[in-house]
Structure formats: structure tokens, C-alpha cells
């Protein structure tokens, strides 16, 4: 038999702690989402326009990050780098590793988006007397950025979910906090139930917003 009785006093005792932890999860998520968007935008543009050296380095960065587990990356930075004298605190490692991971995936998303912009649009920009930068900002970015939007938002959702892995470096985000509350006073249903529900609320809210944003930013069929 499944015994399901919720002890509501759990929430009056630990509610504040859990809300602070959700705050830390969201803080790292927001920093990493913004950072990953910037990294993806710049390196994606460099890849799409085949800017020498930068493009090749960006390709290596993308392949290394995409083909190694993010948990190993976190271990490497937090536990490995101190042996060569680079010791970073948990918050810095949290923001750094999650951003670097998201940035690699976004570089691919934006590269594909920018490359999907037909060349004749850029030629039209040139014909209007736009320079390379202006053509990118006024032509390639608005169109390619919208093509890249759905996959990059999926990357953002993964970024948020990946913050749970920061548990291993003891950063007090949601997963670490819920786990530790349960370790101190085992009320498994309440701890892991809250943990799961909180992530589902965050992730489902994000994917709901995406659908809204997607229909608002969808390219007019003319442009295709």
C-alpha cells in the first residue's frame, strides 16, 4: 500500500529555506541564460560569417562542450582546477559552468539560424549601401535570430534543469537544499515532492511562455 499523508507543518518549518533556494536556482539560471545568449549570439555570428580563427576556436569549444558530460565539466572546474592553483567559490563555478555549457549549444542554434537567412537578403542590404555590421544587425539578426529562437529557448530550459547538478559542489540551490532538509529530518514525500513540483512549475511556465513568444515573433510567411 502506498501511504500518502502530507505533513503540512513541513512547509511552515522549511518553506522559507526552500523559497530562498528557489531564488538561488533562478539567480544562477538568469545569469546563465543571459550569458549563454550573449556567447551564442557572438560566436554563432562568427561561425556563420566564417570569421577566421574565431570561427575555428568556437567550433572546437562547441564540440568539446557538447561531447563531454556537463557533470564532468563541473567536477573538472570545481575539484580539478584547484590542483593548478585556480580555486573558485561555488557560486562562481555555478555561473561559469552552466553559462559555458549553454553558450556552446546556443552557438550552434544561432549559427544555424544565421545560416538559414537567404543570401539574397544580405545582398539586398549591400545594395542599400549597408556595411557588413549594419547588414548583420538590421537584416541577418532580426530574421536569423527568430529562426534560432525555438531551439535556443529549449537550450534555456536545459540550462535551468542543469542547475540541479550544482548539488555536487554544494551550492545551495533547490536540489541541494531539498536533499539536505530530507537528510536532517526525513520527510521524503514532502521534500522530494516539493522539489519535483517546483521544477515542473518553472519548466512548464517557461515552455508556456515560449509558445506565446513563438507565435508573437514568428516570421511572416512572406519572409520565407
Amino acid at each position: 500500500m502506498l501511504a500518502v499523508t502530507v505533513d503540512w507543518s513541513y512547509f511552515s518549518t522549511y518553506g522559507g529555506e526552500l523559497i530562498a533556494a528557489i531564488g538561488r536556482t533562478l539567480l544562477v539560471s538568469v545569469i546563465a541564460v543571459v550569458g549563454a545568449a550573449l556567447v551564442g549570439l557572438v560566436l554563432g555570428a562568427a561561425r556563420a560569417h566564417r570569421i577566421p580563427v574565431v570561427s575555428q576556436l568556437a567550433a572546437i569549444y562547441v564540440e568539446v562542450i557538447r561531447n563531454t558530460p556537463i557533470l564532468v565539466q563541473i567536477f573538472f572546474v570545481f575539484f580539478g582546477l584547484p590542483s593548478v592553483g585556480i580555486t573558485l567559490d561555488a557560486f562562481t563555478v555555478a555561473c561559469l559552468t552552466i553559462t559555458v555549457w549553454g553558450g556552446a549549444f546556443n552557438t550552434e542554434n544561432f549559427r544555424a539560424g544565421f545560416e538559414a537567412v537567404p543570401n539574397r537578403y544580405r545582398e539586398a542590404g549591400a545594395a542599400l549601401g549597408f556595411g557588413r555590421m549594419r547588414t548583420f544587425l538590421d537584416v541577418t539578426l532580426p530574421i536569423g535570430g527568430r529562426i534560432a529562437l525555438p531551439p535556443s529557448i529549449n537550450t534555456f530550459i536545459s540550462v535551468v534543469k542543469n542547475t540541479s547538478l550544482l548539488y555536487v559542489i554544494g551550492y545551495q540551490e533547490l536540489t541541494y537544499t531539498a536533499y539536505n532538509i530530507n537528510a536532517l529530518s526525513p520527510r521524503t514525500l514532502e521534500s522530494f515532492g516539493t522539489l519535483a513540483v517546483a521544477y515542473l512549475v518553472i519548466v512548464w511556465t517557461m515552455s508556456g511562455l515560449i509558445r506565446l513568444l513563438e507565435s508573437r515573433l514568428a516570421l511572416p510567411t512572406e519572409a520565407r
Partner: protein
Amino acid sequence: MVALIPSLPEWVEPVARYMFEVGLPGTLRIAGLALVGSAVIGVVLGTLLTVDSRPLRAAIRLYVEVWRGLPILVTIFVVFFALPSASDALRFDAFTAAAIGLTLWGSAQVAEATRGAVGSIPREQHEASAALGFGWLGRHRYVILPQALRRLLPPFVSLLVNIIQNTTIAQVIGAAELLETGERSAERLTFTTLDTHALEIYGAVAVVFFLISFPLTRLAAYLEKRLI
């Protein structure tokens, strides 16, 4: 004899042996279980997502959205720590719990991809096979799924890469996979050599995963071009 190759430090050999003889098979075992589980459950659920029953579709949709929405670590925590407190029959060892967690996540991914692939098979195929006297099961078993599975090949290879990388999450609950054996080695070395050698060990773990993943991501990209 003069060694032409600089010899490796003494600590390397036992660590490498431990990681390759215990860790790597552990990783592959979790990945294998999760891949088979995800494929079987995912294809069945994904096919059922195309049938004309609202309640059934809603139930499967919920399954997909929940396991896709949760971080895999949280799913594994729920399976490993929360299920045993509900019933003793649901007590799993770390390997099984990790494989179950990865399967729940993977099957949700496969279900979504299968729904798309089955939906992309032209309507005439359904009608023609119905005209030949096939029932729903026969129609899907012999006509629709063989074609849909071909389109599923690239996402399956990508899933394999993701599953292999995500087996490292089993480290958190102590399953002796590659990352966990590396972590144990680093811990042990602290006592014997007064240095964790964590940089070299986690670097090596990353290299092993890269060597497995890189050819597979290339293969996925190639299949995507060839088959679509």
C-alpha cells in the same frame, strides 16, 4: 633500456585499471539498460499518442511532460530516495535506480519523436493497409512503424549520446560508473600521495566521454542528412 616515452607516474596504472575495469563497464551497463528501456517504452507510448482516444492521449502527454520537465537528477532522487519510503518493493540499488531514472526521461524523448515520425507517414499508408485487412496492431506493426523507425534513427543516435553522458548523474547516488570510480580514486590518492590528481583524473574522464560521443554526434549529423 632507455625509455623513449616518458614513463607515467606510479599512481596512474592502478587508477586507470580501476576506472576501465569497473567504471567504464558500469557506465555502459547503465547506458545499455536505459537505451533499451527508453526505445521500447518510448516507441509504444509515441505510437499510442496518435490514436483517437482523448483520455489515453492526455495520460501519455502527462507522462511525457513530467519526465521531460524534471531534471534527471531529481528523477533519480525520486526513484532512489522517495519510492522506497512509499513501498519496500520499490527499493532499488543505485545502478537500477539510475537506469530507471534515465529510462523515464529517455522514453519521454522517444515518445515525442515517435509521435512526430508516425504522424509523418502519409495517410494513404494507413488507408491502404486497412484496405488489405490489417487491424490497428497489424497496420502499425507491419506498415507504419517500419517506415517511422527509419526516420527515428537520427534522434535515436542523439539520444544514445545524451544517455551515455547523463549516466554520470548516477555518480551522485554512488553507482560505480566512470565518474564515480574517478572520484573514488581521487579521494584515495589524497591519502597515499597527498595529492588528489583530480585535474588529470577528471580530464581523463572527459577525454573518454569525448572519444565515445564525438563519433556518435558525427554519425547523427550524417544520418540526418542521408535519411531526410
